[in-house]
């Protein structure tokens, strides 16, 4: 299946979209560019720690709502479109913590509508989240707890170094919440650096952290996480991130997104020199 087909079939306007990776690390950016090309609208984006992918999707006008505990550009500064959208009130924020996202996904496994946490109490989160609630331990210890709601993703979009044709995905570095997203989302799109044999997955450490039983589509896109990293193949591209921050979004879209195949994108982003720069 092509990326175009995968996004077209499995991502619908208004979906709650889970995005894998963390910050500048292993983000499914090629899929995000495709979402922008297809002009998807009104998405709610949920990610553990968001970076350039959330910012791009907002810049592209695809997002109406963000569920994340952090959206920024690491040491490079703020995420400009995210910041502008929040400050102007053009997108809604669901203020999350790390635990509220991790536990929200865990709810799906247990089929429970909420999970309890001792944290968050005492913060201003309850003032801006009418879907979380402080309550008392039903077992009578008197402990005050925060109830955090289930997060039911419509679709998870994940980039991994290795996958097989059946939809088994293997992640060499940190998994973050990718496995929980894959296993609980209604549909899962995996983009991968390399299509390998089932046997390769079985013999890789971690094996199929993303099991084929829950995968809807696998698409091979080398450097599909650029300008973010994909361990153990390449690190993030600081030059491109700086370029992104210095380019007006419509211009960036012209240069790097619209009508760009993967190879055209990579050439626009510096071709062989860029690839050699980031390879580990």
């Amino acid at each position: 299946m092509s990326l175009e087909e995968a996004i077209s079939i499995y991502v619908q306007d208004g979906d709650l979209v889970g995005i894998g990776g963390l910050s500048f690390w292993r983000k499914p950016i090629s899929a995000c560019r495709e979402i922008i090309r297809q002009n998807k609208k009104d998405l709610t984006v949920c990610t553990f720690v968001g970076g350039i992918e959330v910012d791009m999707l907002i810049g592209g006008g695809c997002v109406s709502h963000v569920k994340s505990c952090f959206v920024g550009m690491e040491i490079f500064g703020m995420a400009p479109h995210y910041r502008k959208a929040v400050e102007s009130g053009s997108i809604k924020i669901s203020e999350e913590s790390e635990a509220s996202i991790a536990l929200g996904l865990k709810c799906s496994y247990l089929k429970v509508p909420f999970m309890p946490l001792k944290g968050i109490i005492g913060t201003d989160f309850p003032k801006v989240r009418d879907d979380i609630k402080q309550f008392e331990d039903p077992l009578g210890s008197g402990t005050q707890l925060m109830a955090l709601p289930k997060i039911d993703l419509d679709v998870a979009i994940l980039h991994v170094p290795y996958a097989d044709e059946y939809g088994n995905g293997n992640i060499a570095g940190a998994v973050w919440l990718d496995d929980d997203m894959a296993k609980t989302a209604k549909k899962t799109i995996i983009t991968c650096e390399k299509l390998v044999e089932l046997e390769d997955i079985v013999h890789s450490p971690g094996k199929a952290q993303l099991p084929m039983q829950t995968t809807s589509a696998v698409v091979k896109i080398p450097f599909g996480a650029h300008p973010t990293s994909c361990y153990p193949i390449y690190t993030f591209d600081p030059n491109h991130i700086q370029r992104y921050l210095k380019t007006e979004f419509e211009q960036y879209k012209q240069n790097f997104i619209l009508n760009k195949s993967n190879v055209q994108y990579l050439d626009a982003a510096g071709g062989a020199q860029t690839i050699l720069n980031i390879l580990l």
Partner: protein
Amino acid sequence: MTEYSNDFTVDEILTVLMAREVRNDDVMIVGVATPMVWAAFTLAKVTHAPGAIYHYIMGNTFVNEPRQVSLLYLEMNTARAYRFQNSGECTLESLPSEKLTTIEWFRPAQIDMYGNTNNICIGDWNNPKLRFPGCAGIADFSMFYSRGSFLYTPRHDTRTFVPKIDFISGVGFPDGKSSICGGSGPQCVVTNLAYLTFDDNPKRMKIGTIHPGIDLETVKNSTGFELIIPDDVKETKLPTEKELKILREKVDPLGIRKLEVLAGKEREVLLNEIIKKELAMENRFPKLII
């Protein structure tokens, strides 16, 4: 005899003071995009706390081996040479265990006299004047740590130290009372001007020591609320020659920690220089040889 040095920059005294808080049996929690914290932990590890272990939030891994601070290759540090990886709950797991003493540094955008912190926004949340990236996991666990939480900011001014923060995203000592959830609460705030601690009853910020060359009035005027001032305000113990040498030459020779202190053009120049140097490195995961 220990040789103290007067020849240091703001990032260096911050890093050294942060390093000194680490104990030999700590688990040192390294966040994402906090090179000064990473530098401080590595400095501690190669000087007085060799037994301390990194916990890289990024890979959710416990790592024993210190390596040179890096901008581009943090992931390699966390993904290689680790001994233990938590499950998907990430920071939820294992860290807050009573068995482990953990040390984590948070950098608040705003802080009040009770150590409550804000990393969310300036102004009304519904209509913010300035939106920050967010508080990540601070709201979840900072109040659990038995060793308490540790704060730092290279921007000791009345925009950071405010009478009332705009959004509580990290809980300190509510109204001066003990930390909730059983943790010890904020322990100190390391700034570019002073080392601040918290008085006992009520739990309110007080001056610990003032850095060399800074006077008390500057500290007072840079703080948007009343600090408790001890009768005898001491000067911060200077960095040692050894600490500075190791920090500059071994732990963070590229000066990546300085990105947390600099601004504007100066910062951009350094950033470009670091990127250029790191991209040119043949070995992208150099061993740290002390």
